[in-house]
């Protein structure tokens, strides 16, 4: 069984983003970019399934600008076999990405797609679900435990009140939650080896996908700033403020 893992290049999770003064978006120039943290977890799970003998090959795919090759190489350094970049400078929204991934999944005849549950930049939490819908496959979202046996995936999912376990017929799409695993680090020899692994580049047109954005971003602004607070010297002062100033208790 082949597993496809989509990865996204995003602003590093530790960076405090700055909104551009013209309201057109956030500042991306000279900002540290990394692989979306949820996607690292997705790769780790795919690699573990390969190491357990469930999967035969792990393919990493990314959609976007040329620099996404670095993100794919990072995935190859972790242990994936090969990479695919669907290259475009058009702004890609989840529906377009899902359509591109559908084309790649069908071309590569994969049985399982494992993606992150959301990207930490657009916070959409849509692509895996959309991909499953387009492929007509079941979806196991927000996975914190995956067991694959007999053509089925039994997946424990993080839901609002706790955990829920459901069974899904393969082929399927799984989206990874933070608790699914602890991703490994790439070693230097593996980073060197990853440079020689195959990385195919294709265009959305070659896959027959129209990637025109459906949502128009009119503006991006900073959220309202909170008024600076005060430090209180002791608990008595805190209780006094909460009772008499903020009037919340």
């Amino acid at each position, binding site marked *: 069984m082949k597993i496809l893992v989509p990865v996204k290049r995003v*602003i590093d999770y530790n960076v405090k*983003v700055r*909104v551009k003064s013209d309201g057109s978006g*956030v500042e991306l120039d000279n900002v540290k970019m990394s692989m979306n943290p949820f996607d690292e977890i997705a790769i780790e799970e795919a690699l573990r399934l390969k190491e357990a003998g469930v999967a035969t090959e792990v393919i990493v795919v990314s959609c976007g600008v040329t620099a996404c090759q670095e993100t794919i190489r990072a995935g190859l350094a972790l242990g994936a076999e090969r990479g695919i970049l669907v290259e475009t400078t058009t702004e890609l929204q*989840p*529906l377009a990405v899902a359509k591109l991934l559908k084309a790649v999944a069908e071309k590569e005849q994969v049985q399982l797609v494992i993606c992150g549950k959301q990207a*930490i*930049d657009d*916070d959409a*939490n849509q*692509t895996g*679900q*959309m991909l*499953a*819908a*387009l492929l007509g*496959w*079941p*979806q*196991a*979202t*927000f996975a914190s435990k995956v067991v694959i046996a007999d053509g089925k995936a039994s997946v424990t999912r*993080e*839901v*609002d*009140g*706790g*955990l*829920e*376990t*459901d*069974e*899904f*017929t393969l082929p*399927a799409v799984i989206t990874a*939650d933070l*608790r699914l695993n602890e991703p490994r680090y790439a070693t230097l020899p593996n980073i060197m080896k990853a440079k020689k692994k195959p990385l195919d580049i294709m265009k959305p047109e070659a896959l027959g996908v129209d990637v025109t954005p*459906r*949502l*128009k*971003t*009119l*503006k*991006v*602004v900073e*959220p309202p700033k*909170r*008024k600076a*607070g005060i*430090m*209180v010297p*002791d*608990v*008595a002062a*805190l*209780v006094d403020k*909460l009772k008499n100033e*903020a009037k*919340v*208790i």
Partner: protein
Amino acid sequence: MSVLVIAEHDNASLKGATLNAVTAAVQLGGDVHVLVTGNNAATVAQSAAQVAGVAKVLLAEAPHLADGLAENLAEQILAIAKNYTHILAPATACGKNVMPRVAAKLDVAQISEISKIDSTDTFERPTYAGNAIATVQSADPIKVITVRTTGFDAAAATGGSAAVESIAAVGDSGKSRFLSRDLTKLDRPELGAAKVIVSGGRGVGSGENYHKLLEPLADKLGAALGASRAAVDAGFVPNDYQVGQTGKIVAPTLYIAVGISGAIQHLAGMKDSKVIVAINKDPEAPIFQVADYGLVGDMNVAVPELTAAI
């Protein structure tokens, strides 16, 4: 113009988050219908019919609809989707699971976690862990939307008198099956809807200390308990306590953060709280930059003192 709201429920009672989604639907204008899918869910449909602003409740019942599996729920929504200009669900685990599936089958973009409605096609939504607010416009014929519940007040649960109409249930997809559920038993207010939240982080030290320190304070305030990712990862409390970008988004009247440093991802989940109190021994902790009242000190002393003083 007609707006469909997908009800969230457990076949026995309507979840509070649905009421916030109804408020968003009412703001859009037009007739507001609520879809209840489940099994033996007539009482839920009756509750939905009493929600102020709801014009009609559609009820689809079948055993395979009981557990809200996305494969079946999406088909049920799609069966009636073409009658509506907007389809809304609360941005809960259930709403986030099913709505993108519906949108993709309709070949429209989904708009996640809207926090404000500017017009019938223009919405505001937080991105980058709440550090940027994007205003987006959709040209799609059907707008498929999840609603950030803290962005909209809850609609009144009574005062409405909508008719309940049964509709045909779709068939079972056969692609997924519910196995089991392991829910955290809470005798406290639900985190998402609580007026007061007491939340603990790594600084609390242990699960034992978390319960010993924070529960009496929460009891006294009638508060829900929350946690940072660090506290969850360390095993102090279950995952569903987590407040933040990847956990629950909350906006209570009072949020008390104990032993929480205030990472970007945690702030994303609570910085819209009305009043934030931080108790931390590190005066440099970023949480103090968003706290209305900060107290630098040992929580093992300060929290019991606070519990005793209120």
